[in-house]
């Protein structure tokens, strides 16, 4: 049990490190959003599972944290991606951009 918990925690730490590296090294904003979200979600997942193996009677609260992260993290990055799309310059190497016509006149006033 101890070993399983340790392995999960180290994997979680590695994925957190990957999230930080992805944020640092990816070339444009949307790539950074993708790398950050995916790596930190799996990192939190595996770290929390490791903690559950070490303390089995905490599993209810940890389950709540996992549900919250899996729901909230992608929603946050989607909202952020839309904001970045609407506000800033697009990356220069886009192949297709089928959203141009959709969000063109999306104002409320």
């Amino acid at each position, binding site marked *: 049990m101890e070993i399983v918990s*340790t392995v999960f*925690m*180290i994997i*979680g*730490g*590695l994925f*957190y*490190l*990957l*999230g*930080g*590296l992805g*944020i*640092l090294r990816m070339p444009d*904003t949307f790539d*950074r*959003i993708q790398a*950050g*979200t995916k790596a*930190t*979600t799996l*990192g*939190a997942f595996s*770290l*929390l599972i490791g*903690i559950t193996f*070490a*303390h089995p009677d*905490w599993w209810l*609260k*940890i389950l*709540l*944290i996992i549900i*919250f*992260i899996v729901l*909230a*993290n992608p*929603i*946050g*990055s989607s*909202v*952020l991606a*839309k*904001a*970045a799309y*609407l*506000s*800033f310059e697009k990356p220069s190497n886009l192949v297709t951009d089928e959203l141009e016509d959709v969000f063109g006149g999306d*104002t409320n006033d």
Partner: protein
Amino acid sequence: MITIIVFSLVGLGILFAVIRLLKGPTAADRVVSLDTFNVIVIGTIALLAHVFDNNLYLDIAIVYGILAFLETIVFARYLEGHYGNR
């Protein structure tokens, strides 16, 4: 020993996110790195709960996660409204 390894990995992740927070050319980059930073901090608080063997820290992790999510949403909505009219 194990906790030192895990903490150093997590700390490196936080360090890289903070470097992007300082560098980031656009405001969206900074918010992205802040978001990543926050999720890493949630994991760190849970890890502290494990180290101190006290499950009250998990409450703090939940509350921190909720506030971090709200912060991301508020910043994103602000960016949309502020720069969006160009």
